[in-house]
């Protein structure tokens, strides 16, 4: 480990450059974090509007607003944009803002690469969205783009999708390299690995997952590209290839990917719960080991997405047991959070509400995940709305809730302004009631056999779908309210104290003012 940089006095505390070029050329971790978070929010609203189209169409049985082709394009783009455009960039944005402040570093280790890894994303998503305007329409094969649907039978625009995925992959890999280099080299003296805040730990492990699996995703889309245009037959049985192999390679990426989207959330919750319980986090080292175990196990369970594709019984049993094994380290985390709150002096400010919402509803999503992991019953649940309900509970009320919790928790630190507490609480309760109205009935229609990715359905599912759609519109509206809260907080509000929260710990709260200077920790802080 090296010490943080000492800084040339002449450059102390200069502010950001003026004008629009500030944002284009910036290498400042706070600026880039802000850019990432805004991109994620814009993508959340874009992907969210697509979800509104989906819910409007599913409000009643029969075809009302859109044709099946367009419906399929909506489900595909909704999934891709939410995964690669909203959740992942939001976590990278939080990493940019927080990791240097949490470990006492002046900036990220590779600031120019940081700029680049952000700025290729707008191009990637413009390319992806432009497919909607093309002849033949946007990709319509689902976010998992199974071959041969995405090779032999795909629209022309699929090539734009492939290159967009390449760009997103390059961006994520560069971002992850930056995180690893920062954490390994730029910690303040005395900040040993086992003293790092859990958000830093979970991001370090996430970054290793990213550099391990994003290149595999790049590989699989490259194989698609050569299958489509250069005469190879990776996934084409006629040339000796195998479409089932696509699913194996895709899920070898895809399963670690779902932990990429949840591990940083665990870090956020592990920061917020102790603050508002006014107790130290229970079982810090077990949290670190649990995160590492989840990451390692995530590489060994991918075929549980493929139980119905065809596998020998031994394979089904192995993947079933390995999958269910993951609930042990995940359970360790949930129990540690609950134990942290046990006999704590709890208060329920907005970030705490979102964090508690996360724990309860992520656990619901975890339980439906356990059900799906059981091979014999998965045959019934596979590709139904039960799966949709499951992954929205872990991704919306899990990952997204943690991101919103992080916003409310750290925005007073970032901007120096407190958000309006009443607004924050309205946002929480509005979202939490509507998101359950939205997704809970989907468990029931799923168990009753309603398939996913279908624009029409039989009459017996009508009531639950209508309820679900109403919840969907309400949840969508709540996020417009969130946009209002964000802008209002940035523009002004009650001044936050340096510590912001009574029970807050960590360098960003204890060693920096609110808002922090443009360049923080030019001299490394003392770690007790």
């Amino acid at each position: 480990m090296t010490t943080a940089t000492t800084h040339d006095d002449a450059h102390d505390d200069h502010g950001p450059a003026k004008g629009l070029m500030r944002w284009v050329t910036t290498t400042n971790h706070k600026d880039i974090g802000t850019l990432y978070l805004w991109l994620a929010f814009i993508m959340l609203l874009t992907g969210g509007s697509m979800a509104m189209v989906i819910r409007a169409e599913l409000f009643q049985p029969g075809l009302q607003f859109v044709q099946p082709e367009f419906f399929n394009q909506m489900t595909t783009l909704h999934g891709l944009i939410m995964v690669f455009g909203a959740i992942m960039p939001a976590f990278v944005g939080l990493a940019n803002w927080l990791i240097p402040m949490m470990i006492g570093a002046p900036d990220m280790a590779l600031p120019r690469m940081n700029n680049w890894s952000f700025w290729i994303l707008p191009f990637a998503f413009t390319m992806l969205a432009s497919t909607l305007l093309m002849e033949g329409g946007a990709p319509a094969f689902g976010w998992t783009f199974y071959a041969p649907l995405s090779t032999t039978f795909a629209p022309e625009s699929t090539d734009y999708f492939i290159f967009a995925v390449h760009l997103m992959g390059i961006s994520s890999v560069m971002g992850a390299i930056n995180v690893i280099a920062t954490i390994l080299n730029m910690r303040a003296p005395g900040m040993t690995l086992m003293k790092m805040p859990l958000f830093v730990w979970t991001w370090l492990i996430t970054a290793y997952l990213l550099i391990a699996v994003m290149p595999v995703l790049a590989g699989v889309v490259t194989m698609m590209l050569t299958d489509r245009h250069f005469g190879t037959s990776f996934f084409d049985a006629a040339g000796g290839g195998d479409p089932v192999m696509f699913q194996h390679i895709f899920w070898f990426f895809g399963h670690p990917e779902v932990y990429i989207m949840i591990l940083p959330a665990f870090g956020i919750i592990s920061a917020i719960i102790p603050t508002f319980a006014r107790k130290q986090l229970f079982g810090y080292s077990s949290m670190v080991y649990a995160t590492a175990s989840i990451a390692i196990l995530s590489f060994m369970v991918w075929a549980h997405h493929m139980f119905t594709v065809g596998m020998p019984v031994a394979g089904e049993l192995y993947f079933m047991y390995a999958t269910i094994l993951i609930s042990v380290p995940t359970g360790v985390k949930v129990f540690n959070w609950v134990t942290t709150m046990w006999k704590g002096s709890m208060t329920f400010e907005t970030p705490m509400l979102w964090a508690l919402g996360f724990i309860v509803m992520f656990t619901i999503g975890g339980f439906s995940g356990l059900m799906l992991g059981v091979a014999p019953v998965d045959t019934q649940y596979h590709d139904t709305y039960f799966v949709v309900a499951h992954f929205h509970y872990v991704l919306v009320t899990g990952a997204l809730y943690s991101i919103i919790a992080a916003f409310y928790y750290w925005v007073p630190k970032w901007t120096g302004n407190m958000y309006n507490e009443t607004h924050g609480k309205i946002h929480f309760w509005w979202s939490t009631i509507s998101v359950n109205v939205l997704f809970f009935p989907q468990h029931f229609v799923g168990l009753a056999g309603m398939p996913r990715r279908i624009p029409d359905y039989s009459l017996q599912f009508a009531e639950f779908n209508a309820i679900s759609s109403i919840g969907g519109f309400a949840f969508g509206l709540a996020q417009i309210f969130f946009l209002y809260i964000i802008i209002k907080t940035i523009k002004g509000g009650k001044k936050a104290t340096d510590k912001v929260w009574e029970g807050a710990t960590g360098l960003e709260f204890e060693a920096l003012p609110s808002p922090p200077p443009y360049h923080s920790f030019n001299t490394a802080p003392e770690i007790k």
Partner: protein
Amino acid sequence: MSEAPGKLIPRSQLAKIVLIPILMFGFGFALVPLYDVFCDITGLNGKTGRIEASAIDANQVDTSRTIEVRFLANTASGLPWSFEPVIKKMSVHPGQVYEAQYRVRSSADIVTTGQAIPSVSPGLAAKHFNKTECFCFSQQKLNAREQRDMPLRFIIGNDIDDKIEQITLSYTFFSVDKG
């Protein structure tokens, strides 16, 4: 900033971190042969084996067991061929070589080429289902409206699981013509 924090990062460590994604990109492609090898060893995925006629030991026939082999034939879309087995099923002893015939007829007015892909069910029988001669070993080129009988010589290994009493062998012809 006058002093880029990047200067503090040891280049060798950075090289290692950059190397991981590059290797993993290669690993993604290495999964393709690994997948084939895995299926070949385990006999999963219905991939049948090939055996040289000279390698067969004639004294290994197990007449105490009889296995029923059913033949299926399919043509993928884009290939105007009709394709069917001449006999639909056979009763065979493990260890003995048998011959079956498939008949294919092109209804196209031009030369068409197809490749047959085999699949065996139950999947675990595939490893023991070996062929000495098969029309699937090479591409088949048919002239306009040509009909052809194609032989298939196979042997079921006598180490096949006792519980297997019936094997279904399915061939699908895919078009390999461009366009």
